[in-house]
């Protein structure tokens, strides 16, 4: 018998989410709720494991209000054998640390787990920290980035799976107990049939309260026990207002295409101003954890320098990376140890550093390893951790961490109740660190660490990252462009200017472009520095796909086109002129 538990979550439907126009806060009831999209990969993995091994006994677990039962029903319909609902008023306001604690308590209450499967992250809070923290609370290993299940051995309970993280694909043999985290979208999407739904409706859902748990103290849960608190919450969508450019616009566009300026219209930067106005200089003690990619670490330092004017940043890393970062760090603490894995060494090293120095904040990259490492440290030291930060403020000797939620529709400012604040930092958000005049001092530290991950690598290969459909600069071709000749010219113009291109829905319907090129609610959302919109009317559906573009410029003949109220630059005129420039 192999016990496999799957943690699922019912999340507000981010497509329909609304914010209060005055306060910017989320109108939670407005959203309706759906099973967390990433949980589908978890259920899909469970279903493959069950098909491979009849010895598996599975249960789905959720924590949340009554509508969370819908997620359990869905898990039951798709193969989970039983369902547990942790529902207690004491849980309200739990952050990811407390959520992981409550779920791990529930898992221990239900029975001995061999595997726990979690979706990569929830679409509402978007932290990706819960799986790692559950593993730490349970004392399990945690495997992120699983893209394929191969087999499970009923006798030894060990399994073989493929994982892919940061460009390395490994086939590994995993020993139980472990937390398994499939990569979002890696597993086939499962749909429950109406029959399965109806059968699931008839099954019992077992209700669990805090009083049932080993730690039955209500004060251990909920908002009061949480180590991070919300300072403010605002809608991320900035109001844009178009600056109208003269009809002789080709020079202006040329300039825009060449400039690297990404100030104007930056959704995330603008919202930060709304959270607070503080501009104190930060003279605290800050550290950044270096995992091997100097560019990423440079951004961590750059974040502290550009956002809060940090005077000194220490980089923590494994000994053999020390020379890579000494040019950007004021100080490098390099860990070494005999016979431990790189990750374990870093884990113990950072913990030693925090205990010895008690810094104000420690930053990690918001990638798989960064999330894994930070959530382990948070649990071990009982520290607050904020995920995927896109901004920082130094206020009253406290680091306020700004992060998007709900697929970037909301910005939240968060602070930790204890020092140091731990935060993972989203990539490509901050400038690189300033080059120091002198090399940072390297301090070597011996660390006592041992292997904690119980896996064997069967094979390993490097994989190329997938190419992005839309680059930094995007040409959006709208309905006003209806002739094939013009369309082809525009596509060529885009390619000549090193831009990628997309279209609005009518052009797909007109057969001018394939479905993959559609931008908008039912197409792709674009993250780019610049988008030029030609003959785009500016419907809500199209503009929703362009929300995260820093600078939007629209060219349209109709001065009353809706698009002009939603872009940074407007040109009233004929789009064809762009081809002459």
């Amino acid at each position, binding site marked *: 018998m192999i016990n496999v538990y799957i943690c699922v979550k019912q999340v507000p439907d981010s497509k*329909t989410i609304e914010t209060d126009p005055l306060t910017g806060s989320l109108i939670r009831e407005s959203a*309706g709720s759906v099973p967390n999209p990433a949980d589908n990969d978890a259920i899909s993995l469970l279903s493959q494991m069950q098909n491979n091994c009849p010895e598996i006994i599975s249960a789905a677990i959720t924590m949340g209000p*009554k509508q969370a*039962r819908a997620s359990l029903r869905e898990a039951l319909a798709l193969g989970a054998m039983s369902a547990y609902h942790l529902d207690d008023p004491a849980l309200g306001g739990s952050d990811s640390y407390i959520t992981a604690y409550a779920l791990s308590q529930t898992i221990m209450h239900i029975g001995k787990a061999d595997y726990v499967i979690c979706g990569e992250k929830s679409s509402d809070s978007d932290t990706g920290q819960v799986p790692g923290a559950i593993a730490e609370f349970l004392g399990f290993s945690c495997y992120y980035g699983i893209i394929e299940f191969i087999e499970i051995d009923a006798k030894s309970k060990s399994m073989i799976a493929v994982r892919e993280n940061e460009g390395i694909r490994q086939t590994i043999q995993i020993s139980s107990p472990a937390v398994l985290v499939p990569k979002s979208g890696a597993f086939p999407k499962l749909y429950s049939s109406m029959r399965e739904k109806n059968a699931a409706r008839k099954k019992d859902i077992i209700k669990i309260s805090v009083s049932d748990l080993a730690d039955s103290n209500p004060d251990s849960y909920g908002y009061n026990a949480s180590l991070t608190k919300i300072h403010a919450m605002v809608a991320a969508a900035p109001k844009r207002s178009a600056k109208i450019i003269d009809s002789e616009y080709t020079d202006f566009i040329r300039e825009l295409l060449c400039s690297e300026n990404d100030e104007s219209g930056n959704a995330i930067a603008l919202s930060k101003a709304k959270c607070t106005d503080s501009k104190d200089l930060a003279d605290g003690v800050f550290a950044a954890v270096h995992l091997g990619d100097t560019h990423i670490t440079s951004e961590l330092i750059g974040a502290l320098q550009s956002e809060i004017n940090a005077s000194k940043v220490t980089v923590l890393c494994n000994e053999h990376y020390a020379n890579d970062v000494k040019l950007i760090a004021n100080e490098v603490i390099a860990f070494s140890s005999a016979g431990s894995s790189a990750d374990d060494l870093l884990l113990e090293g950072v913990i030693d550093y925090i205990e010895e120095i008690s810094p104000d904040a420690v930053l990690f990259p918001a990638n798989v390893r960064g999330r894994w490492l930070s959530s382990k440290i948070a649990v071990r030291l009982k520290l607050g951790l904020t995920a995927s930060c896109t901004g920082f403020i130094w206020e009253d000797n406290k680091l306020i961490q700004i992060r998007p939620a709900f697929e970037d529709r909301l910005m939240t400012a968060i602070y930790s109740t204890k020092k140091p604040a731990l935060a993972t930092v989203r990539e490509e958000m901050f400038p690189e660190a300033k080059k120091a005049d002198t090399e940072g001092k390297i301090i070597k530290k011996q660390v006592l660490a041992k292997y904690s991950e119980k896996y064997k690598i069967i094979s390993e290969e490097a994989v190329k990252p997938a190419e992005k459909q839309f680059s930094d600069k995007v040409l959006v071709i709208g309905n006003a462009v209806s002739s094939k000749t013009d369309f082809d010219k525009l596509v060529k113009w885009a390619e000549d200017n090193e831009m990628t291109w997309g279209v609005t829905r009518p052009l797909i319907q007109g057969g001018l472009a394939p479905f993959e090129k559609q931008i908008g609610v*039912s197409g792709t959302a674009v993250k780019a520095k610049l988008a030029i919109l030609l003959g785009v009317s500016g419907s809500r559906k199209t503009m929703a796909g362009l929300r995260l573009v820093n600078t939007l410029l629209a060219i349209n003949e109709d001065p009353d086109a809706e698009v002009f109220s939603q872009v940074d630059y407007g040109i009233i005129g004929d789009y064809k002129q762009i081809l002459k420039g």
Partner: protein
Amino acid sequence: MESNLISRLKSALGEDRVLTEQEQRTKRATDLLAIRLLQRHMGWKPTLPLCVVEPENTEELARAVAICRENKVPIIPYGGGSGVLGGAECRDTNAVVIDVKRLNKIGELSDEDLCITAEAGVMIKDLEAYVNEKGYILGHYPQSMDLAQMGGLVATRSIGQFSTQYGGIEDLLLGMEGVLPNGEVVEIKANPRKSAGPDLRHIFLGGEGFVGIVARVTVKVFPKPEATWKQAYRVEGTREGLEVIRKVMREGIKPAVVRLHDWLECEKPYGAFMEEDESLILFLCEGAKEKVRAEQEIIERVVGTDAISAGEKPVDIWLAHRNDAADEYEEYGKQGLLVDTIEISGNWSDIGNIYENTIDRVYDEVHEVLFLSGHSSHSYLNGTNIYFQIGAMPSPDMSSDDVEKLHRRIWDIIEEETVKNGGAIAHHHGIGKHRAKYMESELGSGLKMLKTIKKAFDPDFLMNPGTLINCD
């Protein structure tokens, strides 16, 4: 002949009114027939018309129709393209699409007579905005609000989400002008009511271009309502909910919105306001405050203890998201899901059976079905409609034709059960080409009458062939 026809149309209407570019023909070759959203991802390609004609006024429209008829080519009238039954879908490469989008002038609004005239190509959202600015409403809010045009709404016998108070388009249309298959123009005066033989408006209402094209309409407007009351109620199940609505409608009141959503439709949007497995009733009353208060009191008295209040929030959620479906459907197509909506109606004594039998049979017989839910959204003294929402996952080895068969299997069950239980095969989407198959079971001997009308007006079967009546 082809190029001859095109040059005749061009010389009669002007070069720029006759579009032959592939992109223009592709855009006007289809409507929103649900299965196409999926088939497009499976390599299905539309049949393109010979050309698209865009007349600018009734006279040009009449001239275009006459020329097509002389050349004996099929005509497909095209409005907003939001139909979901293939009424505007081209299935003949010789066909000429007549798009009325340039007939877009709005006439004067009469406060005294409470009506407004608009040409067929006026978008309903533009007309609504126009009358709103002057302090009125149209009272017609179909889910296709963003796409639909006035002519198309009349031609498909449309209904709006507030119909229980304001009525369907047939109650709102006072008079109109239309073009007959021989190019003649007919005007039907706008009057409050008349007793002058059979009502000729009904040749065009729901005619879907089968014997004529709507050119201009005069519709009612209403003063903006001053008060609103909203309330949701939880009920044990669909049957119980239908019973509550029946009792409310019996009182003779006309709340603008009376809806009942079954458990599956409630789970996502309203889960926070109810218990699992329950159904939800939504009421919205609007108008003068005394009238609204009276309706509220009657509803509260009739509902009594049969249902439990769930507050007004669910109604707000419905109002905010009532037109989101269109986007979702497109997304489903990309995921390989077949999604469709099928609306039927029935008397109070039949409607519960239609709902339950349909759901049971579809579950039993079509294993690809992932969801089948239903809501009642337009209620009357004598009965209501059920709007089924259905999703199915075709197996990966299915071809585009197989998917069409699967789609048809689901449709057959729903229409069969509806007719067997005394219901009507279509409540407000119309017939188009997809549903024509079921017209015999719907009309019985009446089908002969419809065919006779068709032949009398359109002996060569050139007007939107295959729509309403199969071309045999």
